[in-house]
């Protein structure tokens, strides 16, 4: 007799579902094999213990189906639907964030990378208000300065700012072709911190000497950062 067959007979024996012939066949099998007898004996012990009504009630409680939490009780289809909905929501949010960022970048790109500032020469002792520039959002600041026409071979400029900031420009030539009258100084915008600046321009004479040609004042402003 196969093990499965013996087990079916064992189950049937305690279910009371065996014919007289099957029952005798089963009892013979029990005496023929120790494993089957052991299984039978365990079932017999359990069956007799379960005849006690109190114990039976305790066992019923112990094997009672656990309460299913609300979300666990959902069918798999609902859980899949929820998962898909969540994924769609995340995707929509991601697209929204991406588009918002793209729009901001488009606006940012619309701002010229170079801020061109024409400066007006200041008279010594003048109380005229300084030219104030806001350099935030630019990569380069280009200072345009009018210079006297045809007096000098070249120019040298010194930019000074708050503290010890100083930057020198050598061998500057007026731009704009023949008759050009302005110099261009290009500066990385991030070098210019908020504060007052002066540009001193020296002209190189034909004899090789340098003499003051012009002076400019301006102020740099920065957006206040929120703390």
């Amino acid at each position, binding site marked *: 007799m196969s093990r499965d067959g013996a087990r*079916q007979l064992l189950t049937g024996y305690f*279910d009371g579902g065996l014919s007289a012939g099957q029952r005798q066949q089963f009892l013979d099998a029990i005496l023929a094999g120790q494993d089957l007898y052991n299984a039978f004996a*365990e079932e017999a012990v*359990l069956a007799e213990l379960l005849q006690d009504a109190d*114990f039976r009630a305790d066992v019923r409680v112990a*094997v009672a189906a656990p309460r299913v939490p609300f979300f666990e009780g959902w069918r798999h289809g609902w859980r899949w639907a929820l998962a898909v909905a969540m994924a769609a929501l995340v995707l929509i949010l991601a697209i929204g964030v991406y588009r918002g960022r793209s729009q901001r970048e488009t606006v940012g790109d619309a701002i010229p990378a170079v801020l061109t500032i024409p400066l007006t020469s200041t008279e010594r002792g003048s109380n005229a208000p300084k030219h104030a520039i806001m350099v935030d959002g630019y990569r380069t600041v280009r200072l345009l300065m009018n210079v006297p026409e045809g007096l000098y071979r070249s120019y040298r400029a010194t930019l000074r700012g708050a503290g010890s900031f100083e930057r020198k420009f050598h061998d500057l030539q007026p731009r704009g072709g023949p008759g050009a009258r302005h110099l261009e100084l290009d500066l990385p915008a991030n070098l210019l911190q908020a504060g007052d600046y002066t540009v001193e321009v020296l002209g190189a004479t034909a004899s090789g000497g340098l003499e003051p040609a012009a002076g400019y004042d301006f102020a740099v402003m920065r957006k206040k950062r929120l703390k």
Partner: protein
Amino acid sequence: MDGPNTGALDAVRVRIVGFATYLGCGDDAEDIAQETLLVLHNRYPEVADSGEILKLSARICANLAMNWRRRKSNASRAVEIPEATPDPAGRDPEATLIDKQLQQLLLQAIRQSGERCKELLRLRLSGVKTKDIAARLKAKPSAVDTAYFRCLQRLRNAMGEVR
């Protein structure tokens, strides 16, 4: 040993020794089997059905084995029943007490068992037949039987651990 069930007792003795060994009685399995047969002969002389004899022998052997194990591990925990104690239900008082202990152990083991085992026990306890359990679980009856006996095996092992 006299009586109408003497032949059946002789036939089942080998299996009782094997069962006592299976329950962990080792070298004392022979003694427990002998005691099982004595109890069977003395207390149930009228039982002649071989199926009933086998069931009774299993129950008596299990009780004796359990008490033997308790006596072995801790003598103070062994059940000692005075001979003169009357049993109002007409049953053996020692067996009754051991049954209670077995019930507690089994209950504890069931609580610690897996959901699959509990489900099978729940269905069996409700009187659902194997083929119906198989249909409900969409499994073969043989698979249900196998799972059920594995469950019983685990319960027995768990009972051994909690003793």
